[in-house]
Structures are given as structure tokens and as C-alpha cells.
């Protein structure tokens, strides 16, 4: 008997709902519904189970069902002074894991991919599959959680995840800096939450103990004209995936508005990104993976991770 197999009825009811036969997709809050191509209209839509199953702040892990909203999860975690690396863009935990986007403050909170310690999903055959484990460190077998994060529900329908949580810094302070190379801001800060750049201004989330935040802001004041601001700038709709250096030069690639995540590489832009050529051999492995996990192509038909 597997020690990871819980008797959680909600998961078994979800597995029964998914079944083993017809084309199927999970509907969350549709915040990233368009990603990966249009869903085939033959797909039956189901909803994932909801609820926070277990949360022990001193373990820095939380077990949460996929249909729970990220907002609800983060509200619970914040009460214990913690949060997770999942972005709250109005969607569900399962949706955020299936999409795999990082938070704006990815430098401070880590990546969504590294946050998923265990995943339980319903396979194309209608079985509950568990990958990973419920502890913060684990190399027991193949890393199925990594494969599921960002897979857009094409390999299995996510039912429940165990996420790593992180403590919220005691102080977080957004500042805006003018007349400075954003990379100098990034290099001046030991562990910023985020450094953003729109081609003119730079925003930085300076965080930590108050004494350190004050010292770091003082240091920035020697490099640039700075001012405290309430919030980061609004983000344009399209995401580009560049290297950190690429993002620092994105002003040469587009005439439209953008916000570049300095030190990360992600850019939010008014214009859609240029298509990139995936590595052909990696694409073959991805194709084989899909065929092996979903031979009949019933999971999220029409969608493809990376499309």
C-alpha cells in the first residue's frame, strides 16, 4: 500500500467524474484559457475539487486541492506570515500549476516550478497518480511534479498539490528609480523581490528586515533619483521569455510598451512575442511524453504545452 495514497474522498469523486473515456478538460477561472491553442469543442468540462487540506506553517508546506483559488490559499498562508510562489492572477491553484507562470516578485519568492513538491492528478486512464512527496526535499524516483507544472493539463488533470511555502519578508517597499541602468539597481541589491524596467524608469521591490531595507534604499539613492511608490506598474498583456540579459535589451526589440523583469528575463509587452523554434529533439521527447501519458489524446484536446 502506498503511504501517499490518502483516503480523500474528494479526489476519488473527481477521478470518477473524469472517468477514462471521453475528451475532457478542467475549467478553472479561465484566466489563461487561451494558452496552448483552442480547446477542442468535443471536450467535456469538469471542475477540480476545492479546499485547503492541510497546512502546517512550521513545515513550510501546504496541501491544497486544485480548484481552490490562489487568493484563498494566499489569504490562509498570510495569516501565518507566509505565501507561495504561485501568482495570484484571479485563477485557481490547479490553473496556476498547469500554466506554470511565475510571480512578478519571482526573484524573492522563487519559481512556480520549484514550489510544487507533490502533485496528485487523474490520468488519462482515470486513475489517481501521485508524483513527488509531501516534504521539502525529495529524490525518491522520477520528478513527475516538474513534468506536470506548465503542462496545461495535457498529461493529467491536476487534483491536489503540496506546495512549498515561504515566509513573507517583514518589510516590503516598492521604489521607483530614474536615470539609471536597471542592471545597476539589480546588482546593488542582495536579494530584491523584483526589479522591473519599462525602458525609462526602474521599479524595485526592496524587502527584508527594516534595517536592511533602509540601508539598501539608501544605497540606491546614491545611484539614482528614487522615490517610494505604492505598487508596481501595470503589466501589458503578452509575455516574452528572454534571458536576463535579453530582457535588459528588450528596448531594441520592440517599439511598443513593455515591462521587463530584470535579473529574470520575463517581459510583459504590448506586442505578442516573436515565435521561437524549440529544440527539435526536445520537441520529440515532449511529443513522446504526451503519447505515453495520454495515448488517446483525451486530456485537454487541441491544447499543447508550448504552442
Amino acid at each position: 500500500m502506498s503511504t501517499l495514497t490518502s483516503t480523500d474522498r474528494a479526489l476519488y469523486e473527481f477521478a470518477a467524474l473524469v472517468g477514462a473515456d471521453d475528451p475532457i478538460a478542467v475549467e478553472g477561472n479561465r484566466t489563461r484559457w487561451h494558452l496552448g491553442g483552442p480547446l477542442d469543442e468535443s471536450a467535456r468540462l469538469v471542475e477540480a475539487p476545492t479546499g485547503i487540506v492541510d497546512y502546517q506553517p512550521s513545515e513550510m508546506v501546504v496541501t491544497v486541492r486544485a480548484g481552490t483559488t490562489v487568493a484563498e490559499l494566499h489569504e490562509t498562508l498570510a495569516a501565518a506570515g507566509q505565501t507561495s510562489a504561485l501568482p495570484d492572477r484571479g485563477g485557481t491553484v490547479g490553473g496556476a500549476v498547469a500554466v506554470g507562470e511565475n510571480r512578478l516578485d519571482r526573484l524573492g519568492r522563487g519559481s512556480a516550478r520549484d514550489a510544487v513538491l507533490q502533485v496528485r492528478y487523474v490520468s488519462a486512464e482515470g486513475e489517481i497518480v501521485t508524483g513527488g512527496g509531501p516534504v521539502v526535499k525529495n529524490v525518491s524516483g522520477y520528478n513527475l511534479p516538474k513534468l506536470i507544472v506548465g503542462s496545461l493539463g495535457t498529461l493529467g488533470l491536476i487534483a491536489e498539490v503540496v506546495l512549498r511555502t515561504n515566509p513573507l519578508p517583514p518589510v516590503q517597499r516598492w521604489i521607483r528609480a530614474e536615470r539609471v541602468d536597471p542592471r545597476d539597481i539589480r546588482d546593488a541589491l542582495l536579494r530584491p523581490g523584483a526589479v522591473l524596467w519599462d525602458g525609462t524608469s526602474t521599479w524595485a521591490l526592496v524587502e527584508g528586515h527594516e534595517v536592511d531595507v533602509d540601508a539598501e534604499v539608501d544605497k540606491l539613492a546614491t545611484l539614482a533619483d528614487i522615490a517610494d511608490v505604492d505598487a508596481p506598474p501595470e503589466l501589458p498583456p503578452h509575455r516574452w521569455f528572454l534571458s536576463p540579459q535579453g530582457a535588459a535589451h528588450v528596448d531594441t526589440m520592440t517599439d511598443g510598451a513593455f515591462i521587463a523583469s530584470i535579473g529574470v528575463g520575463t517581459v510583459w509587452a504590448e506586442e505578442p512575442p516573436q515565435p521561437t523554434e524549440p529544440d527539435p529533439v526536445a520537441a520529440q521527447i515532449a511529443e513522446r511524453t504526451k503519447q505515453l501519458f495520454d495515448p488517446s489524446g483525451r486530456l485537454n484536446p487541441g491544447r499543447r504545452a508550448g504552442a
Partner: protein
Amino acid sequence: MPLFRSMREPTDPLVADLTAALDAGRVRADGAQRSLAAHDASVFDGGIAGPVCFPETTEEVQAIMRIAEQHGSAVVPRGAGTGLAGGAIPLGRPVVVSTGRMNKVLSVDTDNRIAWVQPGVINLDLSKKLRPKGFHFAPDPSSQQVCTLGGNVANNSGGPHCLAYGVTDAHVVSLEVVLPDGQIAVLGGAEDEPPGLDLRGAFVGSEGTLGIATKIGVRITPNAPAVRTLLLSFATVRDAAQTVSDIIAAGVVPAALEVMDQRMTVAVENYVAAGYPTDAAAVLLAELEGLEGGVEIDAARIEELGRANSATDVRLAGSEEERAALWKGRKTAFGAVAQIASDYYLHDTVVPRARLADILEQIYEITDRHEVTVMNVFHAGDGNLHPLLVFDAREEGTLERVHAAGAEILRASLAAGGVLSGEHGIGVEKQAYMDELFSSADLDHQNRLRQAFDPACRANPGKVLPMGHSCADIQALREMPTGVWG
């Protein structure tokens, strides 16, 4: 015919083809070299290695893979052989691909904060090279003076300082991989969160069963300007474990939180005189990294939490020398044990932090009952236990008792909601326990991931998954020994 003489025959078709692709000096089919490649650092009997190859380039690894495929031979990658789970033990006389000569740091890109390295680069050598630039590679396994980055990728290695920074998979951005069919894939890249399946993430920790990484892009971490190292002494192991839980619950995430029990500190002190108290039941080594003000605040908080849990002494390392001595003691713990015992078996399990004290009490009870000596040194902040069973294999029946105690420790960890391995991997050591952690469907899906990379199961066959769940491993292992080696 003597087994090893036939290996030297240049007419052996596999060896001849490999030699033509590399050169005679870098394809070793002699008994001495094959014998070296038969073992790793685990307690398990060695396997039987085929020819041992020392490629220098990706193209040579590709050539080896293709030749091995033509000859129906499996391939086992090998770094420094420091693995503790038998992951590098050759099964079925495979071609062994040593990464020892692929040991170059190709470039250090401080703009992107990525170092590009070959798989044979030694972990500590990379951090030494990065130090003048103000960076380091965060994962720091105890074997870091000898273990390779390719091996770190294969085992998703950890180390004391992974508590704050994460284990290897959080630090690998890109992998160039030679697949078992000889194709070269590039997984991941310098871009964050690239769209598509995260095959890079799936490869890290796959123990050489998905292919051979020939070029690795790793994140480099800036060195923190301020460091505080505290040593807390306790009259009971439970007090030390409770302090660890309380530190994490307080929102303090130190760079490292390491515990040693009294037997271990005594062994360490006799070996290197690092400055550990030998009269405490347990010591907690806590290290904070960050900016000056914050580490001061967090150090005071740790002291307060330690004292609330009856710490008998709290000491702040007063100098870099003192700090270095404490870490030297911690990192040479296994060397210290090797000095006093003829054999040891280092275990590796993870439990929820809150269960640390309970599980340690069980470990003492289990080992007492089996009349085996146990010493404990572990990554307490991660809940990652390393019970070290010390014994003399020459005494009849001892090895059986050691294995029986080890099995009970594993099962106790699973029963506490833990997992089989935190950083050593499954290898051959824990295959038989995989179905106690995972269901049949879970293992079947892990095998599908394996097959997506290696449909014929020729990369490091016979590892990780238990035999009944592993694609064509059984067939591959049966086919290998016939014919070629006579």
C-alpha cells in the same frame, strides 16, 4: 578463457569500434580500470563494467552512445563515484562513460548569472573559480571536494546550504543531453519559465537513466556580505529538534541548520578538534547569510528560541577561523567515522520537521535492538536524516543486522509521512521500497517518463524503478552479457 584477457583483445568488436571513435588510451577494457568502475561509494557489491570510456567532447559521447546501441550494449555514466545508493554500479556489463575528462568550466556569464560547465567539473572547483567574481554554486554536498556537477544533476544533490537556496534542480537552467539513441537535446535555457514541458526539471535527479548531460548551465549565487554562525548545545536531541521547528515557524530561514548527536561530535572532535562540545547530547549548527542588520536580528532570534528550548550553551563563531573550523568538523563527519570504524552505512531519509525528535528516538531504539551503533548528523532544517550505522563487516551476521535496522529506519520514516531519499537517490539501494511509497499507477507513470527519453531502457538499466515497473530493463540486462564478453 580468463575473463579479462578477452577484454584486451583489440579484435573485440565493441572495444575496437569505441577505440576507433576515441583513441586507445581513452577506451580502457583492462581489468584494473573495469574493476574501479564496478563500485561507487555505497555498501553494495560492485557490478561488472564493460569497457570504460573517457570522452572529452559531446560528439565523442554521441559516438559512444551510437556504438553502444549498434552493439546492443547499455551505457552507464560515471562521475566521481561518490554516490551512496549504488546509482553508478554497472549492471549487465554496460559501456561506462566517465566524465572525468569533461572537466572544463566553459564560461562564467555574470550578466545572466549562469556558469556553463562540462559534467566532470568538481563541485567545489566551480565555487572556487567563482569566488573572485563574488559568486558561488549553492548546492554543497559533503562530498563537494570530489563529486562532479554531472553527478549532482543526476542525483539532484543537496547539501547543508540548500535549506535557504534549494537543491540542485533550483540551480540548473539548461542541459545539453546525449540521449541513448545518440541524439543531442537541449533542455531549458537561460530564459526563465520557457513555455513547453519542463524536460530539464524532469532530467535532474534521474540518476543517469535518461541520457548523459554533456553541458550544464547552472545559476550562480552572489556571496552574501554578512554571515553569522551559531553553535547551540542541548541536553537532549528532542530540544535540538524542537528548536529547529521553532526557528522555521518563526519565519527565519537560515542558510543552514545542521544537527549532530553526541556520538558524532565526539568522533569529529577526536578527528579534527573543530571546537564542538563533547558533553552535549546534540548540537545545532545554524548559519545565517544576508545583510548585516538582518543577520544580527535573526541570530538573536535563534539564540532566544534555543534558550526557550533549554539550550545549555549558545555560541556565536567569533572569527572566520572559528566558523571555518566548525564547518570543517561538520563536513568531515564521515571521514571522522571512517577513522574509528571499519565499515559504515550512511542512510538518507526525509520526514516532516515536526517528526524529527520522534523518528530519532525510534532510530536509537531500532539500532539498539539490532545491536548496531548509530551516529546522527543531518540537515535538520530540511527534515533530512542521515543515520550512520557503524559496524565491522568481518563479524559474522553483522551485515544482516545492519540491513535489517536500515530497513526498519526507512519504514519508520515512511510511516511518519516522509520519503525514501532526500539527496542520495534510489539507485539500487531503495528500489525494493519504491512500492511502499508509491502505488502501481504512480510507478507506471514514472516509467512512462523514463520511456519518453529512453524507449529501449539502455541508459543505466536496472536502477530507480523496481524491476516489475521498469520498461525493458529486464530484457536489456538479460541480453547484455551474452556474446560480446563470452
